[in-house]
């Protein structure tokens, strides 16, 4: 049963992050996602210190605030202090992550998180931390409920605001011209990334969050030209990586999160080589393209 819970947690994280990742990579914000997933750490630790326990709500709140703060800081350094963008990202998240690790090591006796867990999580312990109601019913691991709720939120966002997210991602200046607030959707998306990151953090750690945010979405991007399909494929690859990753980890007795990240990479490599349209083995497609242009000149 515990394998099931672990794989299910991995899959929930995978789907949540992969869906958001599709937007991140198309907005060229993959590294901002990376930055946020590191920078939420001090928020988690501070929430822990202030609330004195590992409660979900304060942690989500603390990390959510930090996530938004990160995007503000990056923008501030870039626009107001006129630091080039890549450096703004780099300076901001390394600083905040360092702060988080320092807080953990200084308050080691008060904070029940260790440095390694920050990187690769404790997904193996997920099944142990169950949610038992006042009446004594066992509702299964807490992490499942938390991740599940975040996933539902993400799905609600995508279903209700599909067109707003699509047009602000594809063509921000047109979106602004027809009256869609690009800044608003940017921050909504960043808030969701922060929430997803922090909820995933405990179970899978910073690294797997980044891997799940970027790699399955990138894999899907290589395989399809339709955005809806890209979302679906990214989710499928995420789930696949978490199942295969679990199997690999139990084979060689290593970190489950590390193995899942490895698997996202393996699936990416396969798509990179064999994708019918964009893989490095394509060739005849170039011919299609020329044919198409000739056809066009008749119009």
């Amino acid at each position, binding site marked *: 049963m515990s394998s099931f819970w672990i794989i299910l947690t991995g899959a929930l994280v995978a789907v949540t992050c992969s869906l958001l990742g599709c937007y991140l*990579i198309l907005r*060229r*914000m*993959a*590294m901002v*996602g*990376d930055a946020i997933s590191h920078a939420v750490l001090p928020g988690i630790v501070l929430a822990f210190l202030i609330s004195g326990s590992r409660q979900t709500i304060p942690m989500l709140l603390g990390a959510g605030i930090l996530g938004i703060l990160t995007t503000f800081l990056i923008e501030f*350094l870039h626009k*107001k*202090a*006129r*630091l*080039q963008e*890549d*450096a703004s*990202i*780099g*300076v901001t998240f*390394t*600083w905040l*992550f*360092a*702060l988080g*690790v*320092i807080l953990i*090591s200084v308050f080691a006796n008060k904070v029940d998180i260790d*440095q*390694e867990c920050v*990187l*690769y999580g404790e997904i193996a312990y997920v099944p142990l931390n169950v949610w038992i109601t006042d009446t004594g019913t066992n509702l299964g691991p807490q992490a499942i409920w938390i991740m599940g709720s975040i996933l539902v939120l993400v799905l609600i966002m995508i279903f209700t605001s599909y067109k707003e997210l699509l047009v602000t991602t594809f063509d921000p200046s047109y979106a602004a011209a027809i009256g869609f607030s690009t800044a608003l959707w940017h921050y909504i998306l960043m808030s969701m990334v922060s929430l997803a990151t922090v909820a995933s953090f405990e179970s899978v750690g910073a*690294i*797997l969050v*980044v*891997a799940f*945010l*970027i*790699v399955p979405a*990138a894999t899907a*991007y*290589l395989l399809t030209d339709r955005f809806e399909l890209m979302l679906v494929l990214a989710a499928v690859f995420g789930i696949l990586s978490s199942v295969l990753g679990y199997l*690999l*980890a139990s084979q*060689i*007795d*290593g*970190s489950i*999160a*590390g*193995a*899942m*990240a*490895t698997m*996202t*990479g393996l699936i*990416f490599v396969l798509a*990179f080589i064999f994708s019918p349209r*964009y893989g*490095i083995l394509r060739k005849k497609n170039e011919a299609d393209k020329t044919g198409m242009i000739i056809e066009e000149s008749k119009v």
Partner: protein
Amino acid sequence: MKFFEFFSFTDPNIRYVVVGSILMTVCSAVVGCFTFLRKRALIGDAVAHSVLPGVCLSFLLTGEKNPFILLIGAFITGGLSIFLVEYITTKTKLKEDSAIGIVLSVFFGIGILLLTAIQHGGNANQSGLDSFLFGKAASILPEDLYSFGLVGIILLIGVFFFFKEFTLISFDRNFAEAIGLPVKILEFMLTSITVLAVVTGIQAVGVVLMAAMLITPAAAARYWTHNLTIMMLVAAMMGAVSGIFGAYISYLAPSMPTGPWIVMVISMIAIVSFAFAPVKGVFARLRKQIKNQKQITDENILKLFFQLGEKDQDFFTARSITSLLERRSMRKDLLKNGLARLTDQGFLSKTKDHWKFTEAGKVKGQRVARLHRLWELYLTQYLQLAPDHVHDDAETIEHIITPELEAKILEQLKYPEVDPHDTKIPYKDF
């Protein structure tokens, strides 16, 4: 006192640790300047993370923690990561940021997988490998220092001899190519040096935060100078300070990871630089804006005195705040401050609640009024603006025109007599 014990450097172990930490942070700070200028800061992050599987693989293959072998493994996977980022960006429609993210997270994932597998594998030799994650300056041993030191020195010598070439390809790659430099080879060298810098730094800083040592000192140093040589020296100094501090923390609390502390120190230096550096810093810019605002207020007051003087045909009448505000609405507190400043500077003289022009004040007020009218005329003549649309623009531009520009405008307008509103343009011999 631990502080004096440490900073007297009498203990040879402390000396090793200090020298080692400084060397590591200085190397990455110097090389980071090129990384920063080439806008490849985040690639540094990918390299840093990708070093981990290399370290683990070398250990798995040889079964020992020989620093030199670990370095070679780290160098190979670090270099591979740069190659892969470029390969993915050129071969697919994926953009660079995604490629970096993919390489970084997958390599690091593999690294973690191997590391944990090694840890669970029970090889007694492995303890300490995990200090590559967040760094541990205190664990620098003499033999580590030799290998890391050697790499560091090779690297600094490389930078020294190819400084000119590296600078050129960082600033203007096309130009470097045009004058016949072997750009490809130089880029390869620079890339190798970057990887070496990361590899050297990891024992003190750790792979997770190593990117900061490439980016942050360079970014901070950039705020203090425009000169690359000086920028490198400043970055190196900042790196050294954070390195010493890291070593000290490691000495005080051996269980603490040093990387985060080093990064915290260098980040603080950077934040102070962003905020307070002269000219480029945020506060310097704010101060400049406040100064501009004061200059605008002062010049407007002088112009006001001049205009009132024109109207009364007497430039040296003493005027009260009320009479000034009758002609032009201004915020009263700003006006009061401005009057006080101008009196101090000798452009106005004050008697009771009245102020009047001094000779110098009249000359300056006249100049502002003249520039205002000249600019209005310029706009109507050269930009075909309607005379009733030019006033607002002239209100700003009158404060910024230099004497050389004034001469040029006069020449282009052929020393005009009147502005578009038929008001006389006052000249010095007026």
